C-alpha cells in the first residue's frame, strides 16, 4: 500500500475562530484590548456585603495612613557634605585593606598608610569620608554618632565577635545609621557546602540584629593581598547609590568630623610653659545643622568649648562642577586626607598650600615641633629679636607666629603652618595665593572667577598665572634673603601682609593720579632711605605688584567693600599702619580713599561711573609702568624674578595700549564689559543694602562697649571715680523698661492732607492695581477673552495705569533700568503662576487631603528658605543663617588642654559636636533604663557608671528608682534583672527622647559584653523626687483602753508635732494615729489605736525620705591620654573596686548573715484506729497487718526492781490476799448474774400478764363504747321526741 502523506494542518487565518485565538494569544501576553475584569464580569465585583466593603475600605485607609510620616521642612543642603562611612570590625578582619581597596577603586590612588578620615569623590553627586573604627569602645561610641553608613566587617571563618554586637547596640541607641555587613575571610572554607551554610547562618543572625533583609556583602578572597576588584567595585556601587534616612540627633545638631588639626598657640607661650593651654584650629566638613559662630561645642574625649572663630574655606575635595559626562574623569577623582598626608591642596584662612608630592616628601620630618623651628630660624637670622619686635606686624618667618599679634589679629589672622617649614626643608614647593584678606574670605567665588577668566581670556589667564608665580617667587626670594639679609626678608613679608590687607577696589582708583601719587613717591623715598641698599629690589617687586593691582580690576572681588562696617575697620587699621609708615601703604590708602569716593559717587549713574573708571585706568596705567620700566635694569639682576616681571610688564603694556587707543579687541571688550557690570552691581548693591540701616541696628554695640571702657578708665587712684558724664550713660543704662512706642511729634489729624496720607490704608481707600476688585474683574475678562494676550505679556504692561506707565517710560529714558524689565517679566510670570495655581486647585480639589496640604506647606517653606539666601554670597549668608552643612570649615578653639595637641593621634576621630541652647548646662536628668540582657551583672545605685548621651561620654553616679502606682519614685538598690527602671543622675542636660547607653568602664578589654544598660532620656529637672523608705519604731510604755503612750520613736516634742495625725501601726496590724506629744519622756506621744495594745507590741510609722543625687559629672577625656594608651581611661572607681584594691573586707553584721536553715524533724504518731471503727470498716480499708510491737528500746526499758525479802513477803501476802479477794468477787459476780437472770424472767412474766390484762380491759371498754354509739344512733332515728323521753 502506498502511504500518502496526509494533508498538513493549515492554520486558519480568518473567520471567527481565528480571531478568537488571536485574542486569546494577545491576552496571554497582556496586550489584548479586552476591557478589565471588572467590566467583563461585573457580578464578581458587585457589592456582596456592605459591612465587608466598609471593613476593607477601612483597612486600606488604615494602611495608607500608616505610611504617613509627619512632614518636615526639607533642609538638605544643595551640596551635601561627604557621607561618613565607618568601617568597623574586630582586629585582623581586614578593615584597612578594605579601605585601601575602596580608595583605590574610587580614585585610582593607593594609600599605604591610612590615618584618620579619608575624603574621596565617589561620584558626580557624592563624596565619601571613610574612617576606620577599631575596637576601642570610646572610638566605637563616637563614630556611631556621626556615621551615615557603617560597614561591619565580620570574619566568616571565625563568626561574630563581641565588638560587632557592641557596635550594633551602640548604633541602635544613637539613632541607627545605615548598616551593611561585609563577610571576609571566606577563602578559608574548603568545602562549598560548609561555606554556604556559614553564610546563611551568619546572614540570619545578622538579620535578627539589624532588620530582616539587611544587606550582607561577601568578599570571597584575596588576590595579592587585596580584595577582588570586581567585588570592591560592586561594594563601591552599593555605597554610592545608597539612600539615607535622616537621623534626628544628627539633623538637629551641627557636627564636624575633623580631618585636620593645627596648633596655633604662640610658640613663645609654649616655650615658656609647655603645658600651657593651646589654641587649636580644626578643619572639617560641617554636617547636620547650621553652625553659628561663638556657639558651644563638645569634643568627645576632650570636653566643652566655645568656638572662638569659624570661617569657611574652599572645598578641598569638591564635587565636579560640570555634570555632562556619565562618569568622572581622572582629574575629578579627588582624595583628601591631611592626616594621612594626602591632600593635594591645603587651604588655610589666607593661604593655600599646594602639595606637589614629588621625590622629597619625607614622612619623618613632619614630627618636627614648632619649637625646633623657632630655634632653627633664630640661628639663621642675622638681626636681633629686639629689632624684629620693634617693627610691628612683621612675621619672623613664613612659618612662625606673627609677633605683633594684636595687629595681625585685627587684620585677619595670618597663620602659618608647621608643615610649611617642613616642606621648605624637604624642598617641596608650595605656592601662596596672593588674594587679599577679604577676598580670601569670600573664598571660592574668587577662585571661580579666576577660572572663568582663564577660560575666556588668555591675557587674564597669563596675568593670574603670573600672579601666583610671582607669589612663589616672592617666597623664593624670601628664602634667599633669609640666608643673606634678615631685614630684607622681613620687609618682604610685610609687603605681602599689606597686600593681603588691600581692599583692591576695582572701579575707582581715580585718585591715584590726583592726590596721593606724590605721597606715595615720598613715602617710597622714605622707605628707600630707611632700607639702605636692598630697598631697590624690594621696591621693584612692590611696584610690580601695584601695577598688577591696577591691571586686574576685573579680577578682584568687590563685594565686601561695600560693607561699611568692614570699611571702618579697615580704615582704622590703615591709619594704624600709616603711622608706622611702610613702603606699601600708599596704595592701601589710596584704595581706601577711592572707596570713600566711590560711595560719594554712588549717586552718579552707572554709565557715568563706568566711563570714569575707564578713564581712571587709562590715566593710571602709564605711571606705574613707567616706574617699572625705570627699575627694569635693577630688577634684571635677579634671575628668577625678572623673567616673570618682564612677562608681566609686557602684558601690562599690552593692556595699556589697548586701553589707551581703545582698540576694541575681543579680550579687551570683554574685560570692559565685565567692568561696567561690576560697577553697576556695586552701585546697586550699595543702594539695596543701605548700610545705614544695618549699621543703625547692629553697629551701636561697639559704642556701648566704648562707653563702658571709658567708665572704667575714669577711676582715680583705684578708689574714687569721677562721677561725671555718666548722666547720659546712666540715662541709657537705667532707662524705663517699657515697650510702648510713644509718639513724639503727633501729626495734626484735622488737616486734610495728613488725613489723606493714610486714607489708602483702609479698605475704603484706593487699592493697588493688582488687588483692586474692579481692575481684576476687567483684567479677567480680558484674560479669558483672549489667550494670546497672556502669552505675549506686553499687553499687560500696556494695561498698567497711565501714571505708572509714564514713570516707566521716564525711567527707561533716564537709564536702562534692568529692574523695570525684570519687574514686568516677574509680573507676567506671577500672573501665569497664579493661573496655574487656580487651575491646579480646581483640578486636584477632589484628592487634596490634609496631609497633602501639610506637605505642600512644608515644601513651600523649603523653597522660601532656599530662595531667601540663594543670591547672597556665602560671606553674608553665613552671618544670618550660620555656616550651613556641606561647607568646609575651619574652627578655632582656645584653651584646649595641651595634652590634646601633645598626645594627638590621628587614628582617633576628633568630633566637634555642636550643642543646643541649654545643652551646655548641667542638671538632673531622668531616664528610663534597662540593664542590657547580655550584661552579666546588675547595676548598683551610687556606683559610678559611664554614660554616652548626646555627643558626650561621661562618668556619673546614677540612682535607680522605680515608680510606684501613686507616682512615688522609690529608690532601688540595684537595677531589676529584666525590667525597666528609672535612673537619675547629675549631668549635662540633653533633650528628651535622646537615647543613651551605659558602660561600667572604657578601659582595656573586658571579657564579656561591655554595654551595661541602655535607655532613653525621659525628663529634665532641676530637682528630684526620689525617696527611700524609712521606718520609725517605738514602744508603748503605758496602755489605757485604746490609747497608749509611745516612746522611742522621736527625740523631741517638736518632731512629734511635725508628725501629728500620722498613721502608725503595730507589727500585729493594729492601726492607729499620733495624737499629741507628751511632756514626760522627751519625744513620747499619745496615740490612739483601733484596739488595745499589748506591752510587747512594737509600734512603727512608715515614712519616705528624699534621697539626694551626688553631683558628680566627669567627662571621659580619653583623647587626652598619651598615644597608644587612649583606651586606658579610668575614672572614679566603684566602692567594690576600691575595696578590692585596698583589700578591705566588708564587715557584715552577724545578724544579717545567712545561716543554714536548721529544721527540726517532725515526729508523727502512728495512726490509731479504734477497734469499733476497725470493725465497721470494709475489709479493704481495714488495717491488715498490725504493726508488730517492736522491741522496746533500751532507753524505754524500765530498770528491774529487786525487792527485799521482807518486801517480797509482804508482796506475796498482798498477792494472795488480792487473789482471794478477786476470787470472792468473781463468785459474787456470778451469783449476782444468776440472780439478775431470775429476776429478769420474773419481771418478764409479770409484764406479759400485765399486758394481757390491759388488753382485756380495753376490749371491754370498746364493746361498751360501741353499744353506746349504737344506742345513740337508734334514738336519733326515732326522732327528737323519743329522745326527750
Amino acid at each position, binding site marked *: 500500500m502506498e502511504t500518502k502523506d496526509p494533508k498538513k494542518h493549515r492554520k486558519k487565518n480568518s473567520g471567527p475562530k481565528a480571531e478568537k485565538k488571536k485574542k486569546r494569544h494577545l491576552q496571554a501576553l497582556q496586550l489584548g484590548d479586552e476591557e478589565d475584569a471588572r467590566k467583563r464580569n461585573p457580578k464578581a465585583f458587585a457589592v456582596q456585603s456592605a459591612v465587608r466593603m466598609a471593613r476593607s475600605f477601612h483597612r486600606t485607609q488604615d494602611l495608607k495612613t500608616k505610611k504617613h510620616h509627619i512632614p518636615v*521642612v526639607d533642609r538638605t543642603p544643595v551640596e551635601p557634605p561627604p557621607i561618613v562611612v565607618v568601617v568597623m570590625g574586630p582586629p585582623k578582619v581586614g578593615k584597612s585593606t578594605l579601605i585601601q581597596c575602596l580608595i583605590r577603586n574610587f580614585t585610582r590612588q593607593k594609600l599605604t598608610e591610612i590615618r584618620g578620615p579619608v575624603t574621596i569623590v565617589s561620584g558626580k553627586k557624592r563624596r565619601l569620608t571613610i574612617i576606620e573604627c577599631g575596637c576601642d569602645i570610646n572610638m566605637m561610641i563616637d563614630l556611631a554618632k556621626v556615621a551615615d553608613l557603617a560597614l561591619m566587617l565580620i570574619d566568616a571563618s571565625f563568626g561574630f565577635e563581641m565588638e560587632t554586637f557592641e557596635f550594633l547596640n551602640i548604633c541602635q541607641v544613637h539613632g541607627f545609621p545605615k548598616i551593611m555587613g561585609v563577610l571576609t575571610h571566606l577563602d578559608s572554607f574548603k568545602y562549598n557546602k560548609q561555606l554556604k551554610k556559614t553564610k546563611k547562618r551568619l546572614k540570619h543572625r545578622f538579620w535578627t540584629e539589624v532588620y530582616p533583609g539587611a544587606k550582607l556583602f561577601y568578599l570571597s578572597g584575596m588576590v595579592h593581598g587585596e580584595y577582588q576588584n570586581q567585588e570592591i567595585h560592586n561594594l563601591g556601587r552599593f555605597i554610592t547609590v545608597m539612600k539615607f534616612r535622616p537621623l534626628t540627633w544628627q539633623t538637629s545638631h551641627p557636627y564636624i568630623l575633623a580631618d585636620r588639626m593645627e596648633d596655633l598657640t604662640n610658640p613663645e607661650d609654649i616655650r615658656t610653659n609647655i603645658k600651657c593651654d593651646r589654641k587649636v584650629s580644626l578643619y572639617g566638613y560641617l554636617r547636620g*545643622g547650621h553652625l*553659628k*559662630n*561663638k*556657639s558651644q561645642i563638645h569634643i568627645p574625649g576632650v*570636653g*566643652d568649648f*566655645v568656638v572662638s572663630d569659624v570661617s569657611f574655606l574652599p572645598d578641598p575635595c569638591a564635587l565636579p562642577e560640570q555634570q555632562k559626562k556619565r562618569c568622572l574623569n581622572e582629574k575629578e577623582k579627588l582624595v583628601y586626607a591631611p592626616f594621612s598626608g594626602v591632600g593635594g591642596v591645603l587651604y588655610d584662612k589666607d593661604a593655600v598650600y599646594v602639595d606637589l608630592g614629588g621625590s622629597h616628601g619625607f614622612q619623618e620630618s613632619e614630627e618636627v615641633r614648632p619649637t625646633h623651628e623657632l630655634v632653627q630660624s633664630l640661628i639663621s637670622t642675622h638681626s636681633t629679636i629686639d629689632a624684629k619686635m620693634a617693627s610691628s606686624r612683621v612675621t619672623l618667618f613664613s612659618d612662625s607666629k606673627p609677633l605683633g599679634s594684636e595687629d595681625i589679629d585685627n587684620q585677619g589672622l595670618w597663620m602659618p603652618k608647621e608643615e610649611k617649614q617642613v616642606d621648605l626643608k624637604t624642598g617641596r614647593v608650595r605656592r601662596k595665593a596672593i588674594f587679599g584678606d577679604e577676598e580670601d574670605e569670600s573664598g571660592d567665588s574668587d577662585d571661580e572667577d579666576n577660572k572663568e577668566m582663564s577660560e575666556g581670556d588668555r591675557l587674564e589667564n597669563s596675568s593670574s598665572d603670573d600672579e601666583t608665580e610671582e607669589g612663589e617667587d616672592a617666597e623664593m626670594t624670601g628664602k634667599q634673603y633669609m640666608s643673606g639679609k634678615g631685614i630684607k626678608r622681613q620687609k618682604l613679608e610685610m609687603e605681602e601682609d599689606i597686600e593681603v590687607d588691600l581692599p583692591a577696589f576695582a572701579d575707582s582708583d581715580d585718585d591715584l593720579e590726583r592726590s596721593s601719587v606724590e605721597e606715595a613717591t615720598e613715602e617710597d623715598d622714605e622707605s628707600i632711605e630707611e632700607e639702605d641698599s636692598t630697598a631697590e629690589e624690594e621696591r621693584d617687586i612692590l611696584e610690580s605688584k601695584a601695577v598688577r593691582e591696577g591691571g586686574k580690576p576685573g579680577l578682584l572681588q568687590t563685594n565686601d567693600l561695600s560693607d561699611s562696617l568692614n570699611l571702618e575697620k579697615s580704615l582704622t587699621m590703615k591709619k594704624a599702619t600709616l603711622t608706622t609708615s611702610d613702603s606699601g601703604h600708599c596704595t592701601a590708602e589710596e584704595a581706601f580713599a577711592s572707596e570713600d569716593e566711590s560711595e560719594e559717587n554712588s549717586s552718579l549713574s552707572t554709565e557715568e561711573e563706568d566711563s570714569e573708571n575707564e578713564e581712571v585706568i587709562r590715566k593710571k596705567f602709564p605711571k606705574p609702568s613707567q616706574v617699572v620700566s625705570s627699575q627694569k635694569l635693577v630688577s634684571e639682576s635677579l634671575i628668577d624674578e625678572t623673567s616673570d616681571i618682564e612677562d608681566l610688564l609686557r602684558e601690562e603694556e599690552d593692556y595699556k595700549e589697548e586701553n589707551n587707543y581703545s582698540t576694541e579687541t575681543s579680550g579687551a571688550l570683554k574685560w570692559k564689559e565685565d567692568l561696567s557690570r561690576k560697577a553697576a552691581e556695586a552701585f546697586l548693591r550699595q543702594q*539695596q543694602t543701605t548700610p545705614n*540701616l544695618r549699621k543703625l*541696628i*547692629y553697629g551701636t554695640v561697639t559704642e*556701648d562697649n566704648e562707653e*563702658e571702657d571709658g567708665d572704667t578708665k575714669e577711676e582715680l587712684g583705684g578708689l574714687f571715680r569721677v*562721677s561725671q558724664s*555718666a548722666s547720659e550713660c*546712666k540715662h*541709657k*543704662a*537705667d532707662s*524705663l*523698661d*517699657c*515697650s*510702648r*512706642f510713644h*509718639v513724639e511729634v*503727633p*501729626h495734626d*489729624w484735622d488737616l486734610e492732607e495728613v488725613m489723606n*496720607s*493714610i*486714607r489708602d*490704608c*483702609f*479698605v*475704603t*481707600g484706593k*487699592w493697588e492695581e493688582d488687588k483692586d476688585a474692579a481692575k481684576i474683574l476687567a483684567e479677567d475678562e480680558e484674560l479669558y477673552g483672549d489667550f494670546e494676550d497672556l502669552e505675549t505679556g506686553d499687553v499687560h504692561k500696556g494695561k498698567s495705569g497711565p501714571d505708572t506707565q509714564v514713570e516707566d517710560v521716564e525711567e527707561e529714558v533716564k537709564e536702562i533700568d534692568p529692574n523695570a524689565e525684570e519687574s514686568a517679566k516677574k509680573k507676567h510670570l506671577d500672573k501665569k503662576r497664579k493661573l496655574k495655581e487656580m487651575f491646579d486647585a480646581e483640578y486636584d480639589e477632589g484628592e487634596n487631603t490634609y496631609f497633602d496640604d501639610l506637605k505642600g506647606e512644608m515644601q513651600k*517653606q523649603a523653597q*522660601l528658605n532656599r530662595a*531667601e539666601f540663594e543670591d547672597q554670597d556665602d560671606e553674608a549668608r553665613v*552671618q*544670618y*543663617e*550660620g555656616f550651613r552643612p556641606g561647607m568646609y570649615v575651619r574652627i578655632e578653639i582656645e584653651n584646649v588642654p595641651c595634652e590634646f595637641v601633645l598626645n594627638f593621634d590621628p587614628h582617633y576621630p576628633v568630633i566637634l559636636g555642636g550643642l543646643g*541652647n*541649654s545643652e*551646655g*548646662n*548641667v*542638671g538632673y536628668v531622668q531616664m528610663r533604663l534597662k540593664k542590657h540582657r547580655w550584661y552579666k551583672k546588675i547595676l548598683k545605685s551610687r556606683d559610678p557608671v559611664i554614660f554616652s548621651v548626646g555627643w558626650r561620654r561621661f562618668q556619673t553616679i546614677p540612682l535607680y528608682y522605680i515608680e510606684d502606682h501613686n507616682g512615688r519614685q522609690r529608690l532601688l538598690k540595684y537595677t531589676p534583672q529584666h525590667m525597666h527602671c528609672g535612673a537619675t543622675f547629675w*549631668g*549635662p542636660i540633653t533633650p528628651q527622647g535622646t537615647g543613651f547607653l551605659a558602660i561600667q568602664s572604657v578601659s582595656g578589654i573586658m571579657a564579656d559584653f561591655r554595654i551595661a544598660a541602655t535607655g532613653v532620656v525621659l525628663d529634665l*529637672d*532641676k*530637682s528630684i523626687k526620689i525617696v527611700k523608705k524609712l521606718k520609725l519604731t517605738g514602744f508603748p510604755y503605758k496602755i489605757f483602753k485604746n490609747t497608749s503612750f509611745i516612746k522611742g520613736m522621736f527625740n523631741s516634742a517638736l518632731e512629734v508635732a511635725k508628725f501629728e495625725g500620722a498613721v502608725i501601726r503595730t507589727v500585729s496590724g493594729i492601726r492607729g494615729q499620733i495624737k499629741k506629744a507628751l511632756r514626760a519622756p522627751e519625744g513620747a506621744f499619745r496615740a490612739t489605736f483601733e484596739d488595745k495594745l499589748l506591752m510587747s507590741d512594737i509600734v512603727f510609722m512608715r515614712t519616705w525620705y528624699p534621697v539626694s543625687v551626688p553631683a558628680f*559629672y*566627669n567627662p571621659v577625656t580619653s583623647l587626652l591620654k598619651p598615644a597608644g594608651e587612649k583606651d586606658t581611661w579610668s575614672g572614679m572607681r566603684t566602692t567594690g573596686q576600691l575595696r578590692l584594691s585596698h583589700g578591705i573586707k566588708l564587715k557584715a553584721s552577724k545578724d544579717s548573715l545567712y545561716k543554714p536553715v536548721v529544721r527540726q524533724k517532725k515526729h508523727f504518731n502512728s495512726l490509731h484506729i479504734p477497734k469499733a471503727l476497725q470493725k465497721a470498716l470494709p475489709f479493704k480499708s481495714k488495717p491488715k497487718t498490725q504493726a508488730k510491737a517492736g522491741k522496746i528500746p533500751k532507753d524505754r526499758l524500765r530498770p528491774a526492781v529487786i525487792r527485799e525479802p521482807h518486801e517480797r513477803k509482804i508482796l506475796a501476802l498482798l498477792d494472795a490476799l488480792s487473789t482471794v479477794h478477786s476470787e470472792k468477787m468473781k463468785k459474787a459476780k456470778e451469783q449476782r448474774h444468776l440472780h439478775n437472770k431470775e429476776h429478769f424472767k420474773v419481771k418478764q412474766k409479770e409484764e406479759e400478764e400485765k399486758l394481757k390484762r390491759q388488753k382485756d380491759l380495753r376490749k371491754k371498754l370498746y364493746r361498751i363504747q360501741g353499744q353506746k354509739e349504737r344506742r345513740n344512733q337508734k334514738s336519733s332515728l326515732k326522732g327528737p321526741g323519743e329522745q326527750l323521753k
Partner: protein
Amino acid sequence: MATQAHSLSYAGCNFLRQRLVLSTLSGRPVKIRKIRARDDNPGLRDFEASFIRLLDKITNGSRIEINQTGTTLYYQPGLLYGGSVEHDCSILRSIGYYLESLLCLAPFMKHPLRIVLRGVTNDQVDPSVDVLKATALPLLKQFGIDGESFELKIVRRGMLPGGGGEVLFSCPVRKVLKPIQLTDPGKIRRIRGMAYSVRVSPQMANRIVDSARSILNKFIPDIYIYTDHMKGVNAGRSPGFGLWLVAETTNGTFLSAELVSNHQGQGAAVLPEDLGRNCAKLLLEEIHRGGCVDSTNQSLALLLMTLGQQDVSKVLLGPLSPYTFSKKDCLFVQEAKFIVTPLD
C-alpha cells in the same frame, strides 16, 4: 567638672525684662551690674523684684543672687516649668509689664501655664492687658500657638493707685513655632475698641465712644466700640476710665492704641471727650506707622521668629520702637541676626 554655660554680663537696669527672659530661654546665666548704682535710691525697684519672683515661680531650679544694695543681680535660669501659678504684681507697673514677658515664655513651658496675675490692669506706662489681648494674642496665633486653653481673661479691672485687678492667662505648650510670612499688612477693614470705666459714672464710657467715633468715622464706617462698666468687686479699688482701639486689616494684622485717664491724685482730671479724641488720633498715628505688627508687639514678633525653627520668617515692621531697637543687643544671646531691608 561641669562647664557651666558662659554667662553674660550687662550693666544698668534697662531691658532687665528682656535680658532675664532671653537668659531663661537660652539657659545662659546672666549677671547685671550697676543697677541704678548712681541713683539716690539704688538697686532694684519693687516691680523688678516682683518680676524676678514671678520668673522664679514659673521656673524650676533658678538661682537668683542679689547683693545687699540690690545693684547687682545674678540670675541663673532654671527650666521653664509652668503649671498653675498665682502672682501678685507690684502696682508700680501694670500687669502688662509682666504679661509681655510671659507671652514670650509661656509657649516653651514644660506644663501648660495657667497664671492669675493681680495688680493694675490699665495704666499709662505699659500696654494694658486689653491691648495685649487684642493684638498680641492674634500675633501668637500666627505662630501656631493656639487652642482652647489659649486665653487671656480680665476678671477684675484695677486702676491706679489702688489696683485690685485680676487677670487670668493660660497658654498651651508649643515646642515648635510656625514660621511666619507677614509681609502684606492688607487694608484696614474695621475698627473695634472698648471704652471702660470703673467706679465712675457709666456715662463716661458713652462720652468717650462718641468722641472717638467722630474722628474715626471719617476713614471707615465699620467701627464698633464697646462700653464696659465693671461694678462692685470687679471694679478694683480706684476710679478711672479709658479707651483702647484696635484696627483689624484684611490680612489679620492688628494695630492698636490706648489711653487711660489720669489716676486719682495725679494731675488734672481728663475729660472723656478729650481722651476719646486723643486715643483715636493715636490709632491714626499707629496706622500711619504701618507694618504688619503693632509697635508694642514688634519685639515679641522678632523674638518668636528667632525661637522658631530654622526656617525663614519675614515680617514687615513700621519704624522700630526704641524697645525693639534695644532687642538686638540682647538677641546676641541667641546669636540671631535679622536681615533688614527697607521698603522703598
